[in-house]
């Protein structure tokens, strides 16, 4: 009985420590960064086959291309400012966040980058279903906007 009693604090502490560890993982900033990653994963999921079709790696399919491009467009309405809290940049979370502090410092540039992306997406949503050549030229613009933003605001 005494041995069991001695074990009690050990068990309590183990539970307490594991709970704290769990709470630490629930860092709200990390959650926000995770949500951003999810957005990027989704964008890349939709854009991937469009780029593949434009390159000729995947056979062009007008309906699929159109659906993918429209999904990209629909995704634009789903973002939330809360995903970009202060202190969620690459310098604060070097192993987790890829967003450079410039994203927060250069607000005009960041806004411009978002606008460029939105108009590239609008362009591809309009033309993706209209034949391979139309898709190809729209993919060029989309690639330019993705790359432009990555070059300026994403850590290597």
């Amino acid at each position, binding site marked *: 009985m005494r041995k069991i009693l001695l074990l009690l604090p050990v068990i309590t502490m183990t539970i307490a420590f594991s709970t704290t560890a769990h709470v630490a993982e629930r860092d709200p900033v990390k959650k926000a960064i995770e949500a951003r990653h999810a957005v990027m994963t989704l964008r890349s999921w939709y*854009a*991937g086959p469009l780029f593949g079709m434009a*390159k000729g790696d995947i056979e062009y399919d007008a309906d699929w291309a159109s659906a993918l491009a429209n999904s990209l467009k629909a995704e634009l309405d789903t973002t939330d400012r809360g995903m970009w809290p202060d202190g969620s940049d690459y310098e604060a979370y070097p192993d987790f966040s890829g967003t450079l502090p410039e994203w927060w410092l250069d607000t005009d540039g960041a806004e411009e980058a978002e606008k460029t992306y939105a108009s590239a997406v609008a362009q591809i949503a309009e033309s993706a279903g209209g034949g391979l050549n139309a898709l190809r030229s729209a*993919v060029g613009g989309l*690639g330019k906007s993705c*790359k*432009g933003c990555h070059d300026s605001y994403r850590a*290597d």
Partner: protein
Amino acid sequence: MKVVPEGYAHEHVWGMPIRIWHWSLAFSVISGWLLGEFRTFSIMQWHLYAGYCTGGLLLVRVILGFAGPVRFSVLVSGPRAVIAYLGILFERRPSGSCGHSPMGGWATIAILLCLAWQFTTGLMSVDDGLFFEGPLAAWVSSDTNRMATRFHHYGAKAILVLFVMHVSIMLFYRIWKRENLVIAMITGKKLVKRNR
């Protein structure tokens, strides 16, 4: 025709294959660098082709370096020879070396290593803005992709530095040391010191 300075002779130093190799490499590296630096979706495929050409030329050079007429053992000189050459580098006369000077040999090794680095990292790199990737990118982890991509970008800067040095040194030889090494790499004939 320029007068050959006293004590020197125009000698056939670089054979046709190595000259064709040199200018092919210059073309593939310059075009590959520009296509990469100013890449867009529509030209990105050509950056990959330029990379494959560079890789192929490097492979040829490595084979020739171990088995051919342009061996690495000839290219590499000891520290004493390099220091001795540094001592006479600023004299206003051609190096007179039969081939690369002791420093030039090491510069060649540095360029080859840098290009090999660039070729290897490029194979595993990813540009997820343009949705292009090297042919081996899918075979390694995404962490490796990111690292390779970062190293590939560093490599591009290193190549630019080496390129500027290479061209500046050619100008230094042309202006200060009165030796046109560009023509020598076209014709294969170089000023070599006699009776050495």
